[in-house]
Each structure stands twice: as structure tokens, then as C-alpha cells.
């Protein structure tokens, strides 16, 4: 039974349906693996007893109507879960127990899945290495001294190590795709508005989007279908019918036009990334797609614009943590001092940096120079994509400028950490869907991903293209289990 954890989500769903194994057997396997993988530090909260109860109950009732019937799933600790502690990786929420459930997790439970636990992440999803979490650094299965990427680092590690059959993360600037690339897994950021943001701890509201993290493209289609949909509680979610991504999934991509943007060939990019990109082009040519060179001239301005927009929105969103309504409270002589001490004790360094940058760029006299400027640049970046999508159906780029780096390597220099998201951030600024699919290894045997960017609400095309790549790469996990 222990090989259940090697199966894809789709195969496990099928196996439960066909009574090859029970939900309880599946759940026990993932609980056992999770319990013996503490060194990875991927969990913040374990819900193993409740999960087992749910599984046993499921096996009695055997209601197979859902897309995820009988499946235990651990999720990023940014999704509010009713009566289960939700920390966002922060000390300021270390004791927060929501009295409500996020729409996206609720959608999963409506499809028959249940909660296995809450996974570690960068504090308030601010980070690219999972090193900013109050609950400690997460290790990458590919090496105990390597970061799993971030901010959905706990999710990526738990998935790659087989501690959960699939998981969900959130992506504000690359937080699903970059850790997916670093751990050899599939991560999809849907179009802004495809999934509800209701009940997700907010970071930057015009950029945040939840998405599936899975071991295969087929699983990604399934989980996307389960979690997506319009939600009256989120006015930015869009009322467009959710595709049956699974039934429409095909590796036939013949005749699709794929753009290759020259601006993504950045200075000092390791040759291996460039080679990977070339291989990706060859895979898609082999599948019958047509490659076109395109230009996204404002790419180099995406990161600086992001580091105005995201901190500005974060500083507003995080104003709610004041020690009054929920979370950590520090002592103070008066109300203001209580606020100041609470926020000083409760937030970590990176979160403070971003709140202060956001406060600065929004402060009196600076709004036009920074925030308004950034929103203009954002328009230019979006225009670049809009123009390209008149000529092509999707865009192929590397997911990240490097493979997983060492823990501690970039913590002293915030800007060098930010540069990790150079290929992923333009997508968030433009609200587009994008996926990272494992495409090979570098010379140190560390996984590398390719990114496919799609037209708004055309997740299907990037899933299909990813499937065509996946079939040709035949990617296999090749880490040695060092943690148990």
C-alpha cells in the first residue's frame, strides 16, 4: 500500500472509485509519510486525526459524486480553514482560528476532498525561498541545504516528497510557479478572477490568485476544475463557465502558435536555462506547434513596478493587524504604543520592509512618482502581452533564472532575492494564466521548469501544451530520500 503515495492524484481518485483501495488506506499512507518527514518542516498544523475520521466516514457512505471523492489534501496555510488554525506563516496570526472557510478550500471539500493539514509558507506569502516563515525554513527534497522556493514552499516540498497527493498554493509574483520549478512539480497560476480570493489571507489584492500544485499536468487540470468558479463574495472573481479541463485535455497542439520573447534572454542567465528553453522549443516543434519570435519590450520594468504595487497593496491590507480584533497583541502604555509594539513583535523583517516601502510610496507627495507611475508601467506591460496574443496562442519562457539555491544564500540582499521572480512577475501584473512544468535537470541534478503563459481564461491551452512537453520530457523524481 505504501506505493499509493507514488500515484498521481488522478490515479488515486480512480483507485478509490474502483475500490482498489479505501480512502482510509490512502489517508493512512499520507499521514505515515508526513509523520516520518518532520525534517522537511513542511507542515505548520497537522489535522491527521480529523482526516482519518473523515476518511473512515467516507468509506462507510461511499459518495463518489465529487471530482476528489475521498482524497486527503494538505493546503498552504494562507487559506482560512474553519476551526483550524491559520497563520499565514506569521507570528502575528500564530493563534488565529478562523470561524469561516475560504471559498477555494470549500470548493475542494464540496468535491469530496478533506483537510490533511496546513503547509508552511513565507510570512504573508512574501518571499521566494520560504525563509521568511515564523515557523522556520522548509527544506527541498532535492537537498537539505536547498530552499524549496517560495512563497508556497511547504506546499511544493510536501507535494514532491509525497506527503499529500496534491496541494493548493497562492501566486502573487510567482509563489506557485517558482517553487514548482525548484521541486520538479507542476504549478499553475490561473487567470486573475478564475478562483475566488475570499477567505485567503490577503497580500496584494490585484495580484493574488490561488492555484493547483500537482505531480502531473493531468492532476493540475483536475484540481483547477475543482477549485475554480465565480463567487459572489469576491467581486473580482469572474462569472465565466469553468471548463471541463480534464475531458478537454489533449497533447495534440498541432498548429498552435507559440511566442518566444527575446527579452526573457537576460544577462548572466546560466547557459543551462537557455538550453532548457531551446529544448522546450524543440519539444513543442516536435508536437507540431509553430514557434514565433516575439517582443515584450517592457519586461525589464516589470519587477521594479511590482515592488511598488505589491508593497503598496500589502501595506494597506496588513493595516488590519492591530492587536485588537485577532492575533498577537503586545503590551503598550496607550493604544498607539500597543499598535506599534504589536506590529513590531508580530511581523518579521521582510514583511516590515514591504510595509514600509508600501507606506513610503503611498505617502503624501510620492503617490504620482511611484504608485501612479507603476500603474502606467503595468498598462504598458499588459499592452505588450495583448499585442503578442494577436499573433500567438501562448508564450514559452523559462520559469526561473536558476535552479534551487542554498538556504541563507540570498537572505542578506533583498533585491537579489526579488530577481528570482523576473520571469513570473509580468504574468501577475497582467492577470494572465501561466503554468510551470518540469522540463529537465541542471548539472547538479536539480529540477528546472518551463513556463507557458496563456491568454486570459485560456488555461486549457497552456495545460495542453504542458502535457505535450510532459510526455516528451518524461520527467522522473530523482532525489534520494535523506529525511527519514
Amino acid at each position: 500500500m505504501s506505493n499509493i503515495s507514488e500515484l498521481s492524484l488522478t490515479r488515486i481518485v480512480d483507485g478509490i472509485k474502483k475500490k482498489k483501495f479505501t480512502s482510509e488506506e490512502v489517508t493512512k499512507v499520507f499521514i505515515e509519510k508526513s509523520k516520518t518527514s518532520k525534517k522537511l518542516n513542511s507542515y505548520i498544523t497537522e489535522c491527521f486525526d480529523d482526516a482519518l475520521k473523515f476518511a473512515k466516514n467516507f468509506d462507510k457512505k461511499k459518495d463518489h459524486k465529487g471530482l476528489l471523492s475521498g482524497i486527503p489534501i494538505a493546503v498552504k496555510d494562507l487559506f482560512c480553514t474553519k476551526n483550524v488554525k491559520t497563520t499565514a506563516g506569521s507570528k502575528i496570526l500564530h493563534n488565529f482560528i478562523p470561524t469561516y472557510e475560504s471559498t477555494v478550500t470549500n470548493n475542494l471539500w464540496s468535491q469530496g476532498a478533506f483537510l490533511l493539514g496546513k503547509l508552511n509558507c513565507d510570512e504573508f506569502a512574501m518571499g521566494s525561498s520560504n525563509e521568511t516563515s515564523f515557523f522556520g525554513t522548509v527544506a527541498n527534497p532535492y537537498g537539505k541545504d536547498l530552499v524549496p522556493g517560495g512563497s508556497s514552499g511547504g506546499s511544493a516540498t510536501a507535494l514532491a516528497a509525497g506527503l499529500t497527493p496534491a496541494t493548493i498554493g497562492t501566486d502573487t509574483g510567482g509563489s506557485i510557479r517558482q517553487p514548482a520549478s525548484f521541486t520538479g512539480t507542476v504549478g499553475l497560476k490561473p487567470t486573475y478572477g478564475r478562483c475566488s480570493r475570499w477567505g485567503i489571507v490577503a497580500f496584494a489584492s490585484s495580484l493574488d490568485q490561488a492555484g493547483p500544485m500537482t505531480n502531473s499536468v493531468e492532476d493540475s487540470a483536475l484540481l483547477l476544475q475543482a477549485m475554480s468558479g465565480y463567487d459572489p463574495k469576491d467581486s473580482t472573481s469572474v462569472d465565466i463557465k469553468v471548463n471541463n479541463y480534464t475531458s478537454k485535455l489533449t497533447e495534440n497542439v498541432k498548429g498552435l502558435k507559440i511566442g518566444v520573447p527575446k527579452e526573457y534572454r537576460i544577462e548572466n542567465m546560466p547557459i543551462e536555462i537557455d538550453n532548457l528553453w531551446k529544448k522546450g522549443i524543440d519539444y513543442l516543434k516536435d508536437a507540431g506547434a509553430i514557434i514565433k519570435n516575439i517582443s515584450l519590450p517592457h519586461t525589464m520594468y516589470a519587477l521594479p513596478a511590482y515592488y511598488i504595487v505589491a508593497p503598496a497593496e500589502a501595506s494597506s491590507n496588513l493595516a488590519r493587524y492591530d492587536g485588537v480584533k485577532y492575533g498577537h497583541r503586545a503590551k503598550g502604555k496607550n493604544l498607539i504604543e500597543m499598535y506599534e509594539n504589536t506590529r513590531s513583535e508580530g511581523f518579521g523583517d521582510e514583511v516590515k520592509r514591504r510595509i514600509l516601502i508600501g507606506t513610503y510610496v503611498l505617502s503624501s507627495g510620492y503617490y504620482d512618482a511611484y504608485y501612479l507611475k507603476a500603474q502606467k508601467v503595468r498598462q504598458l506591460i499588459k499592452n505588450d502581452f495583448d499585442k503578442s496574443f494577436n499573433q500567438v496562442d501562448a508564450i514559452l519562457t523559462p520559469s526561473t533564472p536558476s535552479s534551487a539555491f542554498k538556504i541563507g544564500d540570498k537572505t542578506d540582499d533583498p533585491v537579489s532575492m526579488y530577481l528570482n521572480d523576473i520571469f513570473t512577475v509580468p504574468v501577475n501584473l497582467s492577470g494572465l494564466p501561466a503554468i510551470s512544468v518540469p522540463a529537465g535537470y541542471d548539472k547538479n541534478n536539480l529540477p528546472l521548469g518551463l513556463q507557458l503563459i496563456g491568454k486570459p481564461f485560456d488555461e486549457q491551452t497552456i495545460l495542453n501544451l504542458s502535457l505535450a512537453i510532459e510526455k516528451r520530457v518524461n520527467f522522473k523524481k530523482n532525489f534520494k530520500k535523506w529525511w527519514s
Partner: protein
Amino acid sequence: MSIDKNTVKHISKLARISLDEKNADSLSKDLTSIMKFIENLNKLNTDKIEPLTSIINASLKSRKDEVKDGKIKEQILKNSPENNEEFFVVPKVIE
């Protein structure tokens, strides 16, 4: 633009985050390097560009103006560090 220690102290006051001297020093260094990076945008002329206001091409839905929840006072107070009957308790504001 460099963000000196006094500016750091000013914005941390605005953001309601208390800082000690050591924090202010290291933040001044970090924020300066971040702002330098951000100021790459100055190379780009955006005079004739309209700022982006929404990334999705969808208009907001209208709905009936009706109460759908409420009566969740206990839930709202449940996570508060200190409450009394139906109020959040904070340090004394008026002498």
C-alpha cells in the same frame, strides 16, 4: 533616492511599527537598495500613458441590497486578544 534613518523612523511611525536604532539602521540600508532598484522605472517615459485601473475585462455584477449574514457577534469576538461582553477591549484612550 536614499532613505535615511529619519525617513525610516517617519514612515515606521505612519505604519505603526516601533523600531529600535539598530533596526532603523539596517532598514535604511535595505530600503535604499530597494528604492534604487525601483527607480529603474524613471528611465521610462510614461507621460502619455493612462494608468491601469483593472486587469480583468469584466464589469462588476449588481445584486440586491439585502442582508445575508449578521448575528455573528460571538464569531467576530472569538479571536480577539481581549473582549468584554460585546466589545473589543483596548488600552485606555481617554483620560
